[in-house]
């Protein structure tokens, strides 16, 4: 792999820590994307189908 993606992915994960709670940035990003997708699925209007 080359480029920014490689520099982002090719090393041990960076962790965020609050007391007993810790999460890798990658996992946090995935969870945030899932929450955003869920919110979008509820909020964005579904295109009208056949009339």
């Amino acid at each position: 792999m080359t480029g920014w993606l490689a520099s982002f992915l090719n090393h041990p994960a960076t962790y965020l820590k609050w007391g007993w709670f810790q999460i890798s940035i990658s996992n946090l990003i995935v969870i945030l994307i899932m929450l955003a997708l869920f919110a979008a699925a509820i909020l964005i209007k579904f295109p009208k189908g056949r009339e």
Partner: protein
Amino acid sequence: MSTPTHEMWTARLRSSWQRNLPIEKLLPDDQPAYVASWIYVFGVATIAALGVIIASGIVLAFQGPAWYHTSDIGNFTNSIHFWSVQMFFAFMVIHLWGKFWMAAWRGNRVRTWITGAVAFVVSIATAFTGYLVQTNFDSQWISFEAKDGFNSVGVGAWFTVTNLGQMLLLHVAFLPLILGVLTLVHVLMVRRRGVVPPIDAVPANLEVRK
């Protein structure tokens, strides 16, 4: 004495099938108006991701590790397999959230919920065995961490995470088969009962959208 025709198991199976899942229910043209929401797309998105997983997995199986660990196109196919699993889980969990918040087990749909929940657990086992058959330091690390867990609950002799042959066969044969059957039953249950109406549905909203 021969059994009367209507009592034969073939006749009983046929009539209960026709009663519960006639072809009109199995392949409907329309869905009620409330189904026109993006949240209902995540079940089928999960199926789509599963399709890509199975297709890329079949290619990996035919070509073998010497190909998917060394050649560019092999690595690419391996990545397709891995990333479609990531999407499969993301879609499945968003689907689960949606169904949880609409309490989609209402109206005799508990078996739809349960087949979904079991499919979730089996998916985790399938992904886990997948991580164990990478034949690299990652899989070695994961199996050596996991073996203590399985030994401590007493199943280590039977489910041996350091046994590559066992893990590979579970990953490519047994678990995908179980997951496929569960998914099929899950979707047939949805077809049988129809999509659950929203909690606050008024009768006018329940009409089929033409």
